């Protein structure tokens, strides 16, 4: 089961410019573990000191805020497109 994850420009300097990855994470916790492993430099930008997802980072699945889908409890489906979007996005290329 594969999902696609889109990474916003603001974070791409921590992913060597990678803007999108495909992985097989089954839920949000799993997805963040995959990202931690793949892009260690990204971790402190996605999680706070307690390891919680940062307050100002929103996660969308197929255009829907994941909090409306059950949040951490949502099980990713084949082909899901996951967006990481700052709650107030910014920066220019």
């Amino acid at each position, binding site marked *: 089961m594969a999902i696609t994850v889109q990474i*916003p420009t*603001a974070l791409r300097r921590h992913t060597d410019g990678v803007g999108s990855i495909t992985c097989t994470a089954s839920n949000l916790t799993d997805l963040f573990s995959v990202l931690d492993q793949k892009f260690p430099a990204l971790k402190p930008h996605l999680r706070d000191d307690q390891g919680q997802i*940062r307050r*100002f980072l929103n996660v969308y699945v197929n255009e829907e805020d994941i909090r409306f889908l059950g949040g951490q409890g949502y099980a990713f489906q084949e082909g899901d497109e996951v967006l990481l*979007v*700052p709650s*107030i*996005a*910014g*920066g220019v290329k």
Partner: protein
Amino acid sequence: MSHYELRCRECGRGWGNQPRSICDDCFSPLEIVYDYEALRSKSNGSALTRERVSQRAPNMWRYAELLPLPQGFQPRLPVGFTPLFSAPHLAERLSGTTAAAANLYIKNDAVCLPTLSFKDRVVAVALANARAFGFDTVSCSSTGNLANAVAAHAAREGLKAWIFIPSDLEPAKILGTNVFGAKVVRIAGNYDQVNRLCSQIADEHRWGFVNVNLRPYYAEGSKTVGFEIAEQLGWRLPDNVVCPMAGGSLITKIKKAFDELIKLGLVEPKEVKFFGAQATGCSPISTAIKTGSSEIEPQKPNTIARSLAIGNPADGHYAIKTIKGSGGWSEDVSDPEVVDSIRLLAETEGIFTETAGGVTVGCAGKLYRQDRILPEETTVLCVTGNGLKTTDVLAGVYRTERPIAPKLTEFENYLQQTLEVAEVPEVIRAAEETVQIGA
């Protein structure tokens, strides 16, 4: 060198001045900070004083030192300095006592220029910076008022405008954007979806999104509501402010404005209570306040107050902090209460506000009834938009009158048939009594 710059609200990292709204390190929002010492300094002759401010033209630019305006910026529109007036009749109706009559004020941004909402203030500051940052196109996601403001200001500044709106916006707000020549993109979704899309677009296109990459500059414009309230009250702070909340920014910026005036010695220090107003059909911030949460649980908006229909408010977290930290509270009202409150404000004080103003007035009534606001306290209600933009919510409230022939007898018949005796104007009743006595 500039006397202001961007700083992360959470980790404190400085970012200079650039079109950017988040900290790359911790993803938190950026905010403008100022060199207050320079503004206080008497030695260099640039200290901001009441006298200096009061000698300037009656618009929001009189507080220029406390706004992030690029060097050499020359304002081309007299935005702001809207009336603050006492609302004795409304006060009696909301509080149920005459004691409140002298203490309730309306800050009336329904007449803010050029597009009749407080959004003109934020856009004026955002576009001043858009120009300086070299953007030729400005943009926004909007629930309507912002769309109008960006489109109008862009026309005035000779910038291109791309406006993104939920497709179900009030027709007057869409028309009021089209007319300025802006490109309007209707999105089949709610505001939160439009906003998320704009975040993605801002990542790909070099446009000045006033509420995305220009947001820290834009948001500072809201402070002028607070500066004006204090100055118009005679350079003093009120006891309470009731403020409508959509994204939650305005209430935090009025608080920042009051804090800055205190810091600069322009007003006496005072603990002002901040009260937030939402529509029940979209009340993520008031729900958090009522349940004691410090975090926002997003909602799917379902309310006629479409200018407040933001289910995932960007500044919700900070609005909660502002309200709780001040000892204030947040309330919400149903759609029928919104309509009743629009009518109440119009009938008691002659101000025609849009749905957001109805929300504010309705919530203020609840706060008086809950004794969270006391009649003897100086209270300011922020009316942020104009009723002519949301007339659709009053559809069916007033019947269309049958036309009558242009004859005095027709009118007299109409008067008898239409009005109850108690409603017949005094002068006519007196005349009728005279006739009866004579007969």
